[in-house]
């Protein structure tokens, strides 16, 4: 399968809400924004809201946004927009009837035999990026990917080392997060190597936007980059337990972020993400594999088609700890609902367990699931050639058959998705060839990609700029105490390989 710039859905989207229900959720959202309001911990943002007709309570950082401003800002944000990649052939268009899939990150890697978590090495991080660059259904990279950090890197540098690794080892479109002002350096790195990035504004549910998230919003929008506004909630914990109630609070969060972006710079390209999951009522942890997330996401897709704003779905994290039946079941429902309902993006590939672990072997398995979803979204071609009435007439009843027809040779490859990692053998073949499973096929593909895939290289001047910005950030964090002298010594020692930065 070749890289495509996202999967195109060629039939109407699945709807789970009636038009009246869409309006009820919208009215509820407007009421929360105007009556309850949201907490925004940032003086400059508060002033901007006040200048544009919002009620602002400076003592409590509370902003109440009037309905007409909400409607105006929803109109100003584009319904689809380009997401340019370092490799122009990987540039995407986010929005409309296209679903683009991205990498689902993990704090750590896993041992791919015991499935126990452990910290990734620098080489494993870079190899994983290279594999993800090779996979045709990975359309872009999300922040922190593939790992939240790797050996030797102080936590405050993880975000920037991640971006550096992804620019060096992939030509695909890149998204960044924020932590301790990391977005300042991400923006500088992107500009100095001549690429665009998708910045992030992440809410703290319920209904609170803290200073660092607002700073990231200002910096991203003022740099002229597109912005991903993330509302995130656990139903029953940080939002109502009811799906409709959770959509209202999630809407209030992401729409407030969208309003802020439009007030800073009208027309800013915004991708909203309603990152909602049920709460495991035994432990308080997210029930990431739950089917209720798919129901919620389907309804959210419908709401944001109504608004005309591209939507990123809840990341397809499984609760399973290894690539097994549970994992496949949890991921399949989620990507299927995204594809059918009109979700525009989804972080999908490589998560082994929640946001805690990631592995390229899992990403290779997910590549096939994504490919199958992409095929489904293509729908049914009912052209004259596809109907094949003349051929049916020519072949007629048994003993006629279609195997030798030119039409078959042309059409079967269009209609079938042939997975790279599925076992399709007969029992005798399977028993005499080592009883291989999809994991064995994925492992083989992983080894092949590591030894063969060569990402589009960065130029010498781009490499120099990446390293210059990393050094600038290292000095900044050393000076402000987020990296201690001891940590810096360990960090420097981890960079002594002759193959730095790749191992």
């Amino acid at each position, binding site marked *: 399968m070749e890289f495509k710039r996202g999967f195109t859905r060629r039939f109407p989207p699945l709807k789970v809400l009636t038009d009246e229900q869409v309006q009820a959720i919208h009215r509820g959202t407007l009421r929360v924004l105007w009556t309850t309001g949201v907490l925004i911990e940032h003086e400059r943002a508060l002033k901007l809201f006040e200048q544009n007709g919002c009620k602002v309570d400076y003592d409590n950082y509370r902003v109440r946004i009037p309905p007409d401003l909400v409607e105006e800002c929803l109109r100003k944000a584009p319904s689809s927009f380009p997401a340019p990649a370092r490799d122009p052939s990987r540039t995407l268009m986010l929005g409309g009837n296209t679903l683009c899939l991205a990498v689902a990150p993990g704090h750590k890697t896993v041992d791919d035999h015991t499935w126990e978590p452990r910290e990734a090495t620098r080489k494993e991080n870079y190899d994983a990026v290279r594999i993800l660059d090779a996979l045709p259904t990975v359309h872009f990279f999300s922040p922190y990917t593939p790992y939240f950090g790797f050996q030797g890197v102080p936590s405050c540098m993880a975000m920037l080392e991640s971006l550096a690794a992804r620019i060096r080892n992939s030509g695909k479109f890149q998204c960044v997060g924020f932590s301790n002002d990391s977005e300042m350096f991400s923006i500088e790195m992107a500009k100095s190597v001549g690429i665009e990035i998708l910045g992030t504004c992440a809410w703290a549910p319920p209904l609170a936007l803290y200073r660092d998230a607002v700073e990231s919003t200002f910096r991203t929008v003022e740099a002229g980059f597109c912005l991903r506004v993330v509302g995130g909630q656990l139903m029953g914990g*940080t939002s109502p337990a009811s799906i409709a109630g959770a959509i209202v609070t999630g809407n209030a969060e992401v729409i407030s972020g969208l309003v802020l972006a439009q007030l800073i710079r009208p027309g800013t390209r915004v991708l909203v993400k309603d990152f909602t999951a049920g709460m495991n009522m035994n432990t*308080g942890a997210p029930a990431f594999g739950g089917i209720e997330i798919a129901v919620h996401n389907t309804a959210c897709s419908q709401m944001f088609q109504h608004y005309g704003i591209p939507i990123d779905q809840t990341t397809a994290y499984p609760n399973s700890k290894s690539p097994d039946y549970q994992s496949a079941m949890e991921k399949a429902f989620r990507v299927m609902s995204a594809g059918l309902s009109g979700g525009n993006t989804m972080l999908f590939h490589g998560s082994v367990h929640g946001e805690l672990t990631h592995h390229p072997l899992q990403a290779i398995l997910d590549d096939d699931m994504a490919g199958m979803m992409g095929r489904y979204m293509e729908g049914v071609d009912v052209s004259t050639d596809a109907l094949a009435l003349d051929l049916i007439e020519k072949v007629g009843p048994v003993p006629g058959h279609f195997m030798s027809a030119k039409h078959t040779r042309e059409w079967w490859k269009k209609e079938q998705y042939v997975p790279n990692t599925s076992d399709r053998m007969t029992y005798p073949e399977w028993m005499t060839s080592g009883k291989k499973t999809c994991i064995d096929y994925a492992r083989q593909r992983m080894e092949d990609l590591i030894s063969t895939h060569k990402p589009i290289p960065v130029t010498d001047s781009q490499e120099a700029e990446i390293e210059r910005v990393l050094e600038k950030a290292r000095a900044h964090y050393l000076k402000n105490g*987020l990296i201690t002298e001891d940590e810096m010594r360990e960090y420097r020692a981890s960079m002594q390989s002759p193959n730095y930065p790749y191992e």
Partner: protein
Amino acid sequence: MSDDILGKLKQAILDYDPDAATDWARKSVEAGIKPTDTLAAMTDAIREIGEGFSSGELFLPDLVGAADAMTAAVPVVEAEIQRTGATAVTTGTVVIGTVFGDIHTIGKTMVATLLQAEGFTVHDSGINVTAEQFVEDVRTHKPDILAMSALMTMTAPEQRKVVETLKEQGLRDSVKIMVGGGAITQEFADSIGADGYDPTAPGAAKLARTLVGK
């Protein structure tokens, strides 16, 4: 009479009803019931909920609902303890909070509630708590245990900072330190010199008992 009032108080907590719990706590004071007996009845109720939670029969909303009912009624009883000069029986005192830069509350609240169920007196410092605030709360409440949560890799180092600040202030040896949260591992806990770590909330509550030798 006394059994009846304390039974109703206990039931109010089991029914997750803060208004009724406060009402029956007040009636227990009016009836002249020893405030330490009233507190014991409330702890019994929350322990029952905690056991149901640990065995999987009850769920997080039940645990937090009961804790809210108890929290609403506690000031009434504490005021009476102070007025009468009675001595409350407690497993120990804990200061608990989520570290600076981290605003995750659910795990911290679960542990706080289960610590109450184990008979601890809990001072909840909240979320996004600076090292300086933790030190101040340790100085003020003189707890047996300081419990810190961090859910994110980026905020875990803040736990180290709290430990170091306690050392600088000469308070480290006055308190046991336990740490938890999604970003924390036993290895990390050992590296910052914490006295204990557990990956689960019920396990953390049991660990606290061990740390105070009960």
